[in-house]
């Protein structure tokens, strides 16, 4: 018994700050259970959310999880910056510092950015293509619950068993059992693997949804740009995740079952992992940034009241980026020493990506040119993105220059570069999307005034945080450094950088407050088209009914909704009372949520090498798959009377 307890709660889970957080989490859970019980909301939670297969509900669940994870990853970042604020600092123990930079990176990439992207997919794409749902609604719910399972496993690591501590890339041999005992790395491997299954399923789902479920008349070249970038992102996911699956599986087999993939004495090679990881990792960068490019295209066109400039060039540059992204992975480790020929190839392929990206930047600028530009918060993020991403891209080209890279490799220059593109590209884009589609999702706008506070704090904080890090990189400060002596000239830039990080943190608090405030006092969106939008989602009421479109629109041009408005044809979205047909919709299912439970049990058993628990969970997964295949009742009809009532109450019924 004491043995089990020692394994569950090793000393590193009993640091004072973690005990405080632990108590906080327990109290929050007790509070939530109390609220749900006292307001009799358990049934509501189960029926409306946990078993829902509605893409709108799933999108909202992704969104909430992503904001929670942004908080967790952000707190990690602030702790890292606190440790680096002044020289010879020891506010954090060394071990905890290692855990923090590991969880910060992993959470931000896999459990914040990915779900936020999937939130945008779910909340926008079916509307934009004029569809009532995604191709595989139950699989969609499964994807979410597998992500949630991975996120839950990963986040519980610091409370039970100890956090992973080998960096977000987790290279062997540092991740081998001999050098990294304990369960931390097991958490990393299992959590990402399980969430990865969900990501692949999402890739399949949206690929097929976009290819096969578009409204009549919406040809590929009439799709909104966000749909295009989501299409190629889905394809990227399908082709990029398998190498990661293999890399993680090999590490897991080495750690848990004593195989020899990365142990040099038995013929293994750690560089095998590094290659496979980045064979995934570089396309992953584009998985993260391309959806944002799509969001910017929508936002910039809407708020300039102009068609997107150079649509065809945009499509081709997205496809070129997708193709090139598979040929650049070695630039993450030029210092491996593959030789001048190999390095030159990957250096050139890396720099080539700047060309299609440059085309896109110019297209956004030309879209605004002579447009009637408005600047709500969503547009501010798009405007801020352009200079930020250009700096990030230019430093990326510097890193792609092989000779220079030997100097910059794994220095703070690199840290500044990828935060420059990931925050300036991905995060700004997703925040633009959050502000842009919030009224569509919830029926009210986020407060613009508070949004501006959030924007300026976060944007200025960003530059203050990361510009000094470029300088620090040139001065020789390496990444993952625990502390540094005074007198190197590093103290002032580090102090400035930390102040910037806290400014960003303050911005985040304003954002959270703004959500709370707008929920009560935000401007209600009664028209369904608060931004004078161009694409089909704005033809729907906010929030849209369960079946989205009472009548599937027929598309005759790009920017379909804008065209309808120009030609005074907006009445075509209204359905005639006599013509209402029953609509077949997917039925709620408890299997996706039970899958979460089964995978969680499996993952937990694997992490602690308690095989009977893992086998139990694995059998649960198989049993649920079998239960799923025998479940033929996965659709239900919405009665025409219900549709008439809903459309009537929205004032969208003709005759």
């Amino acid at each position: 018994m004491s043995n089990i307890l020692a394994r569950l709660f090793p000393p590193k889970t009993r640091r004072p700050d973690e005990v405080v957080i632990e108590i906080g989490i327990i109290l929050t859970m007790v509070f939530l259970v109390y609220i749900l019980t006292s307001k009799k909301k358990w049934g509501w939670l189960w029926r409306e959310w946990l078993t829902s297969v509605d893409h709108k509900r799933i999108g909202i669940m992704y969104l909430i999880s992503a904001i929670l994870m942004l908080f967790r990853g952000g707190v990690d970042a602030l702790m890292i910056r606190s440790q680096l604020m002044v020289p010879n600092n020891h506010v954090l123990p060394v071990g905890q510092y290692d855990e923090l930079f590991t969880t910060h990176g992993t959470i931000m990439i896999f459990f914040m950015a990915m779900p936020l992207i999937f939130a945008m997919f779910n909340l926008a794409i079916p509307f934009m293509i004029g569809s009532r749902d995604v191709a595989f609604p139950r699989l969609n719910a499964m994807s979410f619950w597998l992500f949630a399972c991975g996120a839950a496993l990963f986040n519980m690591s610091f409370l039970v068993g100890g956090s992973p501590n080998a960096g977000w890339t987790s290279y062997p041999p540092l991740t081998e059992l001999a050098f990294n005992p304990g369960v931390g790395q097991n958490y990393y491997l299992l959590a990402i693997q399980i969430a990865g299954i969900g990501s692949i399923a999402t890739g399949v789902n949206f690929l097929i949804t976009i290819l096969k479920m578009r409204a009549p008349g919406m040809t590929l070249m009439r799709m909104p740009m966000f749909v295009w970038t989501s299409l190629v992102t889905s394809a990227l996911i399908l082709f990029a995740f398998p190498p990661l699956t293999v890399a993680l599986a090999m590490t897991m087999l080495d750690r848990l079952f004593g195989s020899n993939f990365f142990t040099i004495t038995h013929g293994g090679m750690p560089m095998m992992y590094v290659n496979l990881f980045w064979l995934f990792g570089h396309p992953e960068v584009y998985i993260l940034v391309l959806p944002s490019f799509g969001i910017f295209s929508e936002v910039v066109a809407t708020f300039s009241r102009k068609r997107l400039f150079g649509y065809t060039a945009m499509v081709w540059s997205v496809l070129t980026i997708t193709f090139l992204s598979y040929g650049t992975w070695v630039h993450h480790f030029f210092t491996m020493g593959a030789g001048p020929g190999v390095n030159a190839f990957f250096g050139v392929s890396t720099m080539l990506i700047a060309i299609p990206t440059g085309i896109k930047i110019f297209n956004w600028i030309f879209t605004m040119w002579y447009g009637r530009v408005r600047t709500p918060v969503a547009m501010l993020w798009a405007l801020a993105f352009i200079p930020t991403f250009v700096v990030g891209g230019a430093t990326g080209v510097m890193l792609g220059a092989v000779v220079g890279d030997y100097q910059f490799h794994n220095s703070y220059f690199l840290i500044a570069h990828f935060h420059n593109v990931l925050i300036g590209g991905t995060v700004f884009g997703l925040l633009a999307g959050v502000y842009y589609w919030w009224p569509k999702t919830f029926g009210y706008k986020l407060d613009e005034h508070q949004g501006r506070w959030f924007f300026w704090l976060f944007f200025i904080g960003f530059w203050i945080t990361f510009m000094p890090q470029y300088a620090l990189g040139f001065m020789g400060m390496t990444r993952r450094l625990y502390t540094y002596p005074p007198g190197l000239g590093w103290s002032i830039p580090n102090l400035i950088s930390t102040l910037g990080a806290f400014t960003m943190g303050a911005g985040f608090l304003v954002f959270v407050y703004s959500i709370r405030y707008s929920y009560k006092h935000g401007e209600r969106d009664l028209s369904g088209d608060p931004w004078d939008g161009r694409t089909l989602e704005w033809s729907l009421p906010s929030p849209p009914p369960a079946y989205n479109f009472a009548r599937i629109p027929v598309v005759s041009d790009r920017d379909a909704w804008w065209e309808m408005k120009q030609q005074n044809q907006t009445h075509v979205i209204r359905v005639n009372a006599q013509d209402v047909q029953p609509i077949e919709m997917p039925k709620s299912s408890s299997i996706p949520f039970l899958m979460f439970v089964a995978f969680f049990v499996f993952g937990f058993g694997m992490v602690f090498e308690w095989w009977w628990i893992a086998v139990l969970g694995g059998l649960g997964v198989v049993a649920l798959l079998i239960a799923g295949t025998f479940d033929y009742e996965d659709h239900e009809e919405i009665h025409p009377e219900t549709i008439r009532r809903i459309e009537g109450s929205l004032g969208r019924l003709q005759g």
Partner: protein
Amino acid sequence: MNVPIEPESQSTQMPLEFTSEHESLKILGFWAFLATDFLLFSSLFAVYAVYQFRVGMSGPTPAQLFHLGPVIFETVALLTSSFTCGLAVYEMRHHRLKGTIIWLAVTIVLGAAFVATEINEFLGDIALHDTWHRSAFLSSFFTLVGTHGSHVTFGIIWALTLLIQLAGRGLTQVTTRKVYMFALYWHFLDIIWVFIFTVVYLSGKIL
């Protein structure tokens, strides 16, 4: 050419599993899944190709480890099962439930013979202490071939659930779609095995 299409000839033009939009979407989705599974195997093949001669200090080489006898039996069993699986789909396309079930059952039996032989081969290796604890080559060998074997095992369980559904529900849009998807999966595993046979066993014996 305004010849009216008879219901009979229409059904031969459009197989039952493609007549419902929902079901035909699922088939396309399954193709996409197969694409990513193919890349999973590609990654494992790449790992194996790099590790196949990295036998560590004392591990056996591929030529010492492999016995072609059982491997050829496995190959014949799996290739034949792919043929019988094709026959099951042929029967299904001609709306013959009994033939579909029989050939699917034969496919399962052949698949089980394949898995049993493979397990037996692995157990033989383990009895000689040629486990993956010994070398990177053995690690990558057991992982690649084992991943294929567990796919086949999964396929057998899947086909068993299909037999029950076919017996209970007959040939409907849904059950034919499921059989067709299973057939895609089964042929896919066959193709992977052809690569394993060539890249792992044949080249291991010859190189």
